[in-house]
């Protein structure tokens, strides 16, 4: 029963959103505002139930771990954000969370996003058993990365055989890469539409299995 009501409700909202394709209208606006409220409300509930309750409220108020009081007070400082005269206090919890997160990120990002990527470009051009397109592939990975980096290098003008030619090759490589992104993005958006049509045709209208 409830599932049936739910499906009809979902179908209504799906069509309400699609009505935007025809024209912006009150039904669309209704759906859009409903989702703004619900999604943040959902967030609120889950943060309380899954984080604050088991990790703060229960240990502090039920089990009596008083050491958590400073943590709670620090967290509550976020509220000061809404009172102009004391809003600077909200910077304290932000600073604690933010500063350490930045420090945490620095060496790890250096490793996983910079060093590992540089390492992965150090590959042999030819190994026994490589087909011609594999060799070409390795060369393109190495040259492609190098030249695309040259394109984004700002300390030298794009002139001469290294920086001039390099940046030209680089931009072509980047364009091919963007082409791949383009193709995949189109694919992704269509997949999402297919998902909705699948819902409408299967769960709502029962037109297909």
């Amino acid at each position, binding site marked *: 029963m409830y599932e049936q009501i739910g499906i009809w409700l979902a179908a209504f909202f799906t069509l309400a959103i699609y009505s935007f394709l025809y024209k912006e209208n009150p039904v669309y606006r209704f759906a859009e505002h409903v989702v703004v409220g619900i999604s943040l409300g959902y967030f609120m509930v889950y943060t309380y139930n899954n984080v604050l309750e088991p990790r703060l409220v229960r240990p502090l108020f039920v089990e009596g771990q008083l050491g958590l009081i400073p943590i709670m007070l620090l967290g509550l400082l976020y509220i000061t954000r809404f009172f102009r005269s004391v809003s600077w206090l909200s910077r304290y919890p932000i600073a604690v969370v933010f500063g350490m997160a930045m420090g945490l990120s620095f060496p790890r990002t250096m490793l996983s996003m910079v060093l590992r990527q540089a390492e992965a470009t150090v590959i042999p051009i030819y190994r026994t058993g490589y087909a011609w397109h594999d060799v070409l592939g390795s060369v393109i990975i190495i040259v492609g990365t190098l030249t695309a980096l040259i394109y984004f290098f700002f300390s030298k003008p794009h002139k001469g055989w290294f920086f001039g030619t390099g940046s030209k090759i680089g931009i072509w490589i980047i364009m091919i890469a963007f082409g791949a992104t383009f193709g995949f993005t189109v694919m992704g958006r269509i997949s999402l*539409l297919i998902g909705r049509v699948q819902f409408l045709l299967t769960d709502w209208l029962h037109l297909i299995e």
Partner: protein
Amino acid sequence: MAENNSIWDKLFNMDRRWIFLLMAVVVIIPFFFKMGLPINTTDEVEGIYNYVDSLEQNDAVMIGFDYQPGTMAENQPMSEAVMRHCFARKVPVFITAVLPLGNGLAEEAIANLTDPDEPGTFQRVRYREWHSYDYGQDSLPSRVTHDQLVNLWERDHQLREDAMGWVFEGVDYVILGYAPLFHIVLLGMGRSIVSQYPADLYGNPTENMPMVKRNKSAREVDLGVTVAGSSAVLWWLTYAHESYGMPIAFGVTAVMATDYLVYLQSGQIVGQMGGLRGAAEYEVMLKRDGYSIEEGKAFRGMDVQSIAHILIVILIVVGNVAYFAGGYHRKGRRLRAGR
């Protein structure tokens, strides 16, 4: 020329809602004609599949539901496919989420895989049900394995006829759910899972769960699969893989797929599913090896996807032909055609 231009002008200035309508028709009609076009599998997806296929009940997998409902059409089939694979191989699954919305999606995935009205699904037993059950003189081992529990449980319970097998909450899966600052949670789980998640989504204490007893920290988890519609996957890479060596696989939306192949080539991840196509490949392999009785939504969607791509390509070609034939490229542009 002027006459010619007016035709193209009309074409370009026609109401775009006609094109919208065309698109709608193209994605609706093919649903009524099942083509079932074959899909070839690629190394990227086989990497994950073969990895999971090498695991068994003493290992463990962690799946991150790191997407929002918005990209559900692409991501949900991926997480369901990997989860089905794990359930069929009895590999315990830890479920986490970078966003609170992931919790609901995880619940929905479990519900789909254990739907009693569908053949080929699993029969679910909730934690409280089997944990507080009276097993007679046999006591329940605290680190009970899937097989041991099935033996005990089947004395009094019968598996549904068309089901693939049992799934016990707390032994075969646990929804740990969302926690804020998930990258720190990942790091913390490297020390202990219970410290980060004292209770699961339903408030059951995790420290009593056999699968948590057998895999106390994320170091003991053999594969992390992050299914995502955002760059949250990089958190897994940086904070789980590079910090304590958890093998990682990506399931990403098509929009992101091309960006993250670099991590496959660098050997930082074991495989990647990209978009609906990636999910469809996984479904094909599941069916091939008998883990499912038919392919899922992703595979069925790929037929429609084919037709829609053809439409887009035709539109691009016609649009450009018209653009150049109509001489628009010469008109009134003072800037040199840039990039």
